[in-house]
């Protein structure tokens, strides 16, 4: 198998139960090719966040396996896996911990050994991508929720990961920031897995979608195709929003 053939992300038979005994994943299989942008859809409590937290080994598989570019997510490969996979958490407060925005964004690259002007440039670029360059010296916990979410995205962009995983990145963003984020994601030539409840956003950004429901994959296919199947959508609490018809829009060419 050549380098380019190895899937960017492979999940096989993944099952997981939380320490209090509640099982959230019941055997999930999912493969993402390099450079693909895939939306992960599903109702509240389906297990999306639980799945995401397995992708860099924050949660360890109860059964099954996860591989990133062929590398299994196990203790010994953790450092390398975390270099390759960047996760934007659903709650920005889970992501930000340094006293200023700049230090927080610099943290990842600095840990990887980057220093000086190179680091400076990386940080500035990431903050510009989310439109927050002027907030660099503020403490992150004194920002508005949407600003914190954007800082969270910047901290991960600054690491330039090979696989970018975003857990509802567009929630709490104002509409323009949402579009700007879409532009940034489209401009990156990396593998993206995006959890979202915003169906038009998924349609706009991701050619392929996966529906996770009650801890198993319920559907996997073209986004427009899935959204035009009202039966499927309804049975997984994925109703289309007011005033939106997925059949009538022309999806941007990727």
């Amino acid at each position, binding site marked *: 198998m050549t380098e380019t053939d190895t899937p960017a992300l492979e999940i096989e038979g993944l099952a997981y139960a939380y320490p209090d005994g509640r099982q959230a994943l019941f055997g999930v299989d999912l493969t993402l090719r390099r450079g693909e942008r895939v939306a992960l859809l599903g109702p509240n409590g389906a297990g999306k966040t639980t799945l995401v937290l397995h992708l*860099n080994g*924050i949660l360890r598989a109860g059964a099954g396996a996860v591989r990133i570019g062929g590398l299994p997510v196990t203790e010994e490969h953790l*450092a390398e896996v*975390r270099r390759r996979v960047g996760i934007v958490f659903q709650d920005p*407060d889970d992501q930000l*911990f340094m*006293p200023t925005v700049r230090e927080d964004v610099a943290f990842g690259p600095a840990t990887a050994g980057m220093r000086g002007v190179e680091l400076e440039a990386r940080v500035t670029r990431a903050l510009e991508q989310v439109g927050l360059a002027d907030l660099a010296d503020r403490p992150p*916990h004194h920002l508005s929720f949407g600003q914190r979410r954007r800082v969270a995205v910047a*901290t991960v962009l600054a*690491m330039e990961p090979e696989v970018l995983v975003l857990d509802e990145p567009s929630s709490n963003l104002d509409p323009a920031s949402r579009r700007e984020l879409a532009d940034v994601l489209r401009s990156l030539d990396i593998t993206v897995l995006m959890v979202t409840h915003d169906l038009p956003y998924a349609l706009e950004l991701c050619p392929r979608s996966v529906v996770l429901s009650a801890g198993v994959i319920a559907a996997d296919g073209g986004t427009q195709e899935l959204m035009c199947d009202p039966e499927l959508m309804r049975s997984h609490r994925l109703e289309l929003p007011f005033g939106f018809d997925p059949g009538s829009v022309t999806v941007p060419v990727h």
Partner: protein
Amino acid sequence: MGSGHARALYLPGTSAVHRLPAHCKIVAGLCFVLLVVSTPREAVWAFGVYALLLAGVAAVSRVPAGLLLRRLLIEVPFVLFAVLLPFVAEGERTEVLGVGLSVPGLWGAWNILAKGTLGVAVSVLLASTTELRSLLLGLQRLRMPPLLVQIASFMIRYGDVIVDEMRRMRIARASRGFTARGIRHWGVLAKSAGALFIRCYERGERVHLAMASRGYRGTMPLIDEVGAGTAQWTRAALLPTAAAGVCLMGWLTL
């Protein structure tokens, strides 16, 4: 919030001891300790009987002996102190295995060891059979000033907040490739520790304001009234009554 590190002290159960209202248990425990402390140290046998009484309570409440003993270890610093006493104390001296020891020092060591250990055992039993929240309600019921109850309940909640925020920050650091290895990394930890205090405070403050928004004025609503009847007070009085008998005998047989 709060996965509850402090709650780890509590052993869920349904024994007679668990079911006693918290304020009865506090009063009984306090009386018991008072009696123990006022027993003359020369009545060595009395402390044996006290220990047996507590062992009885432990058996009734099904607190495993191993656990009880392990938690007694908190006493170790005092034990060290007590063990040194016979060497450093003044007064009449005696020879044990060829080592010169102070007699008042030996008595002093015995006094602290016996009374201290019994006191610790009472706390351990109380903590293992009473939920923190009911303990606070118990103190409230015993007319502890509301402000003190409030500070205590915030303290317990903040214990959880601190643990929870520390966990979030650790995961956030790990996800960006950081593992604390050696002194080189203490700087990072110190930096994020500064942010930790503010972060904990502000999260707790927001939660407090959320409580205030729902009408909280400093006292928790008593949703389940847990008044104690005569039967329960009688049951709780068993331990101190027995101890009172022992204490009296201790003085009489002096």
